[in-house]
């Protein structure tokens, strides 16, 4: 198979995986955070929910919990990861509604959600 075709196939597969992940996250969001349902689970990040996060997100969330509102760069300094990587993790946590973000001047800050 020519290299270009192979790359295209990989790209298509990756997009498929991405959309599946998005559906999973959206599905989970509906399942967990639907406020219309009784017995709704909290949308602030408690320690037991934090423990159930995958390793990489847990490290990011724990760091944010310890230092309070911070930029992706500040989190990355503590976790020794690239800023772009932490930014992606933080945004995943935002999509999961565990973290919220806000802008102050030119900087974007992330903080653990509070109810």
């Amino acid at each position, binding site marked *: 198979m020519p290299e270009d075709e192979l790359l295209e196939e990989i790209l298509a597969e990756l997009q498929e995986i991405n959309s599946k992940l998005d559906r999973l996250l959206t599905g989970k969001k509906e399942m967990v955070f639907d406020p219309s349902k009784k017995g709704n*689970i*909290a949308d*602030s*990040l*408690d*320690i*037991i*929910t*934090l*423990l159930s996060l995958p*390793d990489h997100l*847990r*490290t990011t969330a*724990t760091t944010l*919990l*310890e230092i309070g509102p911070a930029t992706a760069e500040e989190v990355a300094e503590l976790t020794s990861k690239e800023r772009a990587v932490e930014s992606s993790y933080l945004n995943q946590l935002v999509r999961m509604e565990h973290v919220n973000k806000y802008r102050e001047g030119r900087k974007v800050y992330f903080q*653990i959600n*509070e*109810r």
Partner: protein
Amino acid sequence: MTFALAVHSSKGGTGKTCIAVNLAGAYALEGKNVCLLDIDIRGPSLFSIFKPEALFWVNDMLSGKRGIKDTIHDVSEEFGTKGKFFIGCSNPDISEIREIVRKDRNWQSSALKNLISAKKELDKKNIDILIFDTSPGVEYESINAVAASDMVLIVHNSSIACNSCTEQIIGGIYTPLKKHCVIIDNMCHDNTLQPSEEKRFGIDVIARIPCMCDVATRNDEILTLTERDHIFSQNIYSIKDRIERHRL
């Protein structure tokens, strides 16, 4: 920076409070500024040892109604310690305990934030060592304290149940939270054939404290302050030194 120790165990009755209180005493005696907090808010103990004239409790700090400074009491003079010795007690009133049991995950989430803020406040107050006396097993308050700590002292006894539960908690709580842990074997019976271990579940066993009746009968005093030559006190001083070596 304030160094926080969570004294925790998988099962009840392993001697957490006794070790937490005496360790706090040992640190304060040495000249360290210490704060001991009763995080076992469903089964408070420290009020019965220290009998504080408290207006506010650890419960109020966790709820965010009061800051840590309103919650803690200076007992340095009473115990004649070289360093500052602060204690924060949980409210023993049953209606308060019932209130805690009703709290939901949102409350627990903000309690963790308040605990982390309290630690930062204590750092500004030049507290060197913060000790959390926790409730056994996987209770929200205990796991919050573990999350807010820098090291976990696992107080362990020789029962089979304690052994298997500890292994579970190491794998399911301490390791995912990347906590530095050490094990203290407490109430060891000399007549049982147990080999002395240096490591268990991959974690350093830093002490093996023998079972002594007078440690139980004299639980209204802090042996590390009242009888420094006692075998139990000697064990606690040694634990303190091992912890310091682990910190390096």
